[in-house]
């Protein structure tokens, strides 16, 4: 038996994000009133409290803000792996948690430029991960 990582379970609040990943696009909620991007998805804009939010494609470019190299994890997770917060190009402080792949953990550096890529988990779900740009 192969142990698998848990899949994300999209809901009404988050479906647009995962549908975007399925189309190999990074889509985030964006406030229609003030233009602030919101991630993780929330029902209200934290900048202006508007509830008029819609999904908008972002470039997928970013820089690594902070990370850990995980050495101890359940068997479904192949260690060591890098999980961190990537600051996206569109807005200061707009960060997404993801894996840094395609780079040995020891070579990972603060501020390194990254670009989104998508790992196919099944017919419906792609996982957004980040590679050195």
């Amino acid at each position, binding site marked *: 038996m192969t142990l*698998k*990582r*848990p*899949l*994300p*379970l*999209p*809901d009404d609040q*988050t479906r647009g994000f995962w549908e975007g990943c399925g189309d190999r696009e990074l889509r985030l909620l964006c406030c229609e009133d003030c233009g602030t991007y*919101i*991630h*993780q998805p929330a029902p209200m804009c*934290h900048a202006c409290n508007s509830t008029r939010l819609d999904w908008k494609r972002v470039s997928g470019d970013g820089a690594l*803000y*902070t*990370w*850990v*190299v*995980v*050495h*101890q*994890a*359940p068997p*479904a*997770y192949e260690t*060591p*792996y890098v*999980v*961190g*917060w990537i600051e996206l190009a569109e807005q*200061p*402080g*707009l*960060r*997404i*948690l*993801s*894996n840094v792949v395609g780079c040995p*953990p020891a070579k990972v550096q*603060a501020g390194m430029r990254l670009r989104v890529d998508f790992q196919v*988990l099944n017919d419906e779900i792609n*996982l957004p*991960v980040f590679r050195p740009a």
Partner: protein
Amino acid sequence: MKGEDLARNRAAITGVGYTPLSRDSGLGVEALALQASLSAIRDAGLAPRDIDGVVSYGVGDSAQVRSVAQALGLEASNWYADLYGGGSFSCLSVANAAMAVALGLCRHVLVYRALNGRSGRRLGRSTSAAMEAVGGAEQFSVPFGQLAPVQSYGMLARRHMIDYGTTTEHFGHVAVTLRANAVRNERAIMRKAITLEDHRESRWIAEPFRLLDCCQETDGACALVVSRSEIARDLPHPPAHVSSFAMGGSGASALSPDKVDDFTTFFPAHIAPGLYARAGIEVGDIDLAALYDAFTFLIIGQLEDFGFCEKGEGGPFVADGQITPEGSIPVGTNGGLLSEGYVHGLNNVLEAVSQLRGDAGVRQLESVEVALASGWGANVGSALVLSR
């Protein structure tokens, strides 16, 4: 400032109680809660019938307040609060009890935390990681392998290293200092002294955190009694007055720090000024800091944001011996959560009480008049100023 110190010194901690701390208690959480609670009530010179309020916290892994109250045979209560929360609730639960006392609802409120944190549900392990699919906030963390606090706090530590030059050796100084304190504490789970080299050679868990940067998953319970100050004076032990309390923070979150400007300003920066003002103290008046220490770095971050040293100077400050019992601000005199055990932070509050009473035995610091205790979880934390 009028009106801001209504609660100052209106309540006091009058009794404390522990079960043994272990990795396998062999008891249920309710049995643990009752044992610690009865011990605290008797320590205060009281009987269960004197208790008229009960407060506890947990994350679905503890004994419920109503069952504990029933099993203790409490006769009347004006205040039951079963709070759902983790490390940030340790001082909040005491504050909640102090408010019930200060407002006149209660005379003596019991506060406890019980858990089988090693033999039962382990906080350091994600139960979600074994599931087929995860929803809610976890759909953005678990599929990427962010599974436990060691990883989320590790990211705060990493950013602090980037911004301020803090090193893993600084973390080592915290581990070594608190272990040295635990060696002198019969209750502590870890009593073998360690060196910086031991720390450096311990295995990575989530780099930059090694094994010796992590607290002890623990089975056990502790409890305390919060009483009206005017009654407290007639009880057997010197009261530890609750001079002020706070619970708060910023939008920054260790778990989802995606909507904040910076990862290296922590909850004390937001609550400390008011906390000190309401207690009528300045940071220099604090003799002991019982800081929440699920991981070594948490002490460094709090030392800065509670104002014991400049921002960014926490690493050099601990390396200079400033948090040892002989230093300018002793921290974790019981060994802390890192080495005494992890009763979700409440055991650190009990150590502060013991030091204020002057009954900490071989660990006793000279002349403790004012102690600070804290609890931290995600982006928020709670804190207490206790005074003799």
